[in-house]
């Protein structure tokens, strides 16, 4: 359908896109790594339960950890090989995770997919809604936008839903993985979206794409059943609540799910993997990752197996340059800074950024000026400076009350704009954690 312009909302920032670094690099397959280290915490909710043993031979695509409980997802071996170790470790985010280490059998890949060595579910032809839902759960599909909410839970809403929104905004600077995927796999994304729509029983599909990707917008316009909405270039346009508002005009209430407003939001990459899961039976153990930043030799958009170490990826992209100041897993606005390369990609890792000192500001914080810029840009209309003020004083309840922390989506716009470089997101996360602790003590 012909593209229409989306609504506008108050707040938001306009960071430098820096997407030109990698936006012209076509998707390419990264050579299989010798060893993959797959974490069992691949989605929101509980970590999965390990079902393989040390020394066991596994095939590519074979399940190695089972979903534990309702909000959890299956985890698969991303290469064929032998489980050499099951170890505990600390993830990039600082939380304890269980890792399954798989070493490949032979260096020249005797058990690759081409030779029939990979495990596949039987492909489904014209599946029913129930079949699609089961397949999404079986294939361990999670939201690939970043939060990693299990898709199987999302496609089974408790309230009636009438619209499916595909998130192609990709508002984070630097990242181009969704952009490249939309350009090169347009048809698969549309087929995946139709399958999700069938699973939840809706007819209207909307895709929101930021105005800085006109080529991707043009790619989706020929599909008659997809409504294309051009979004203003603004961060955080791809935030779930913001996206729903600008595309449909509905406001999701505080503490409510999008499904309560009759909407389901899925990332374009998720739609692509649903398409693969249903049509090819391929579980989710591979995704597109943007490797970018001024401190990397060759910015690329890569198909990377889950559990590949950051070191392998950086080496494949030509290594780091001298000026490296900050290494980030994910996007520059919400990603995690890593201290060393012994970190492994997850299903939700959308990028690896190596930033120079010029790109990643590391100024010391100065006193707050009360300028109110953080409140101006907050897409949720909160008062981040209050949270920072009260949490610094140790009064976390006041911090939560006057800063309305519970509604915060941690987009990072406030800290981006702060001229005094106050660590606002840190204060907000600290407040959230302290509140959780307080609530537990009360119980």
């Amino acid at each position: 359908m012909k593209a229409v312009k989306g609504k506008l909302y108050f707040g938001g920032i306009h960071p430098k896109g820096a997407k030109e670094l990698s936006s012209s690099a076509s998707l390419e397959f990264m050579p299989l790594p010798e060893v993959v280290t797959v974490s069992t915490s691949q989605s929101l909710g509980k970590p999965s339960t390990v079902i393989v043993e040390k020394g066991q031979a596994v095939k590519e695509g074979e399940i190695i950890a089972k979903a534990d409980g309702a909000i959890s997802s299956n985890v698969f071996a991303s290469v064929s090989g032998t489980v050499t170790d099951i170890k505990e470790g600390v993830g990039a985010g600082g939380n304890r995770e269980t890792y399954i280490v798989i070493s490949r059998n032979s260096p020249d890949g005797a058990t690759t997919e081409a030779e029939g060595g990979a495990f596949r579910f039987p492909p489904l032809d014209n599946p029913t809604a129930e079949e699609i839902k089961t397949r999404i759960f079986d294939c361990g599909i999670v939201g690939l936008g970043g939060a990693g909410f299990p898709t199987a839970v999302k496609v089974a809403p408790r309230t009636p839903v009438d619209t499916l929104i595909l998130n192609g905004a990709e508002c984070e600077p630097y990242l181009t993985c969704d952009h490249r995927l939309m350009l090169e796999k347009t048809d698969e994304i549309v087929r995946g979206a139709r399958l999700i729509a069938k699973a939840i029983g809706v007819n209207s599909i909307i895709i929101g794409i930021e105005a800085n990707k006109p080529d991707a917008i043009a790619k989706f316009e020929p599909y008659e059943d997809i409504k294309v909405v051009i979004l203003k270039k603004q961060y955080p346009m791809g935030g779930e609540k913001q996206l729903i508002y600008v595309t449909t005009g509905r406001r999701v209430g505080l503490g409510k799910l999008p499904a309560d407003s009759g909407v389901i939001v899925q990332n374009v990459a998720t739609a692509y993997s649903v398409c693969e899961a249903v049509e090819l039976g391929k579980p989710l153990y591979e995704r597109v990752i943007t490797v970018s930043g001024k401190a990397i030799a060759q910015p690329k958009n890569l198909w990377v197996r889950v559990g590949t170490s950051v070191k392998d990826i950086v080496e494949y992209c030509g290594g780091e340059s001298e000026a490296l100041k900050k290494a980030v897993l994910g996007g520059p606005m919400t990603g995690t800074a890593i201290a060393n390369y012994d970190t492994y990609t997850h299903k939700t890792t959308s990028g690896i950024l190596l930033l120079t000192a010029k790109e990643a500001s590391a100024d010391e914080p100065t006193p707050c000026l009360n300028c109110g810029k953080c409140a101006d840009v907050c897409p949720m209309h909160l008062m981040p400076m209050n949270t920072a003020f009260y949490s610094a004083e140790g009064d976390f309840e006041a911090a939560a009350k006057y800063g309305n922390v519970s509604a915060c989506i941690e987009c990072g716009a406030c800290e981006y704009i702060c001229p005094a470089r106050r660590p606002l997101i840190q204060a907000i996360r600290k407040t959230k954690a302290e509140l959780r602790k307080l609530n537990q003590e009360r119980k």
Partner: protein
Amino acid sequence: MDNSIVISTPPHVKTKQTTKSIMLDVVIALFPCAICGLVYFGWQALMLELVAVASCVASEFVYFFIANKGFSNKCRDAKAVCLRWWKQFDLTSIVTGLILALILPPATAWYVVIIGSIFAIAVVKMFFGGTGKNLVNPAATGRVFAFLCFAAIAASTAYTAPNFGALMDVESSFVSSSATNLAGLLPSKGEPTSNLHILDLFLGTGVKGCIGETCKLAIIVGYIYLCVRNVIKWWQPLLFTAVFGLTAWLMGGFFYETYTLDIALFLPNILSGGVLFAAVFMFTDYVTSPKGVIGQIVYLIVSAIVLALLRYYTHIEVASFVILLMNLFIPYFDKFLIRKPFGFKREKVQKEGK
């Protein structure tokens, strides 16, 4: 990868604007006004500006030095304390000094400026914790302090005539009876008034007034610069001046035997005295204005109305007093006038028995 890399919470990219760059922008925006002061009122005006800036920076340094125990142990740590001061120096005291000088009359004695500066920095700003912690606008408070302590600067003799005479002859048909020449002194009922053309008021030629407030063109140049550099919100001074002009215009009708509303009286009200300067440089001050957008709008509207009313009844320039007064209400603005979170719905009261 070596040990020089940085780890922090996101976001990892940040805006280029820092406190220092903002303050530098404000200093640059004040430059046209400062230069106009020199051109209009001679070297004396420039000397006052320099004295104010120097004494503000000096009193900040001395306070910092004492508070950080620079004198203890026979000044052993003096060098380290000086370095620390230089590291945290963010040009705010230069801005305060410059604004303070620009809102004083050109014939102010130099010691009055120094006392005002020390009061503004040491008492108003540093006592409360330095940059960002002051409750009221330091420059406005410094002026009010000087104004109350030294009656001489409030007297009309403090206002020397500028180097230029009026450019335009006022035609008898042109109604500008409420136009003012002295720092916004409004004539009382029936009093003979000096007539000035709007263009003269705008350029400040032939107008007695404070150093930086006289030439409105320079203020507007500064306003445009601040807007372009994204330091202030473009609508804030406009909203303030519009509401002020409207109120003053409605009140101005009472000057005549029969209540008259002449649209020609709208501009002289805005262009006289220090209203424009206060609107651009003082009511937009970050530290002493509400944090939320709704609070800022209400604050500006209320301040404008209060200023217009006080000016009407007191016949003196009261912009700094109004700033001081309204600053004290800001905690209430911050507490009650805040935006509801996105998606907030007022909980409907369930009626029982249904």
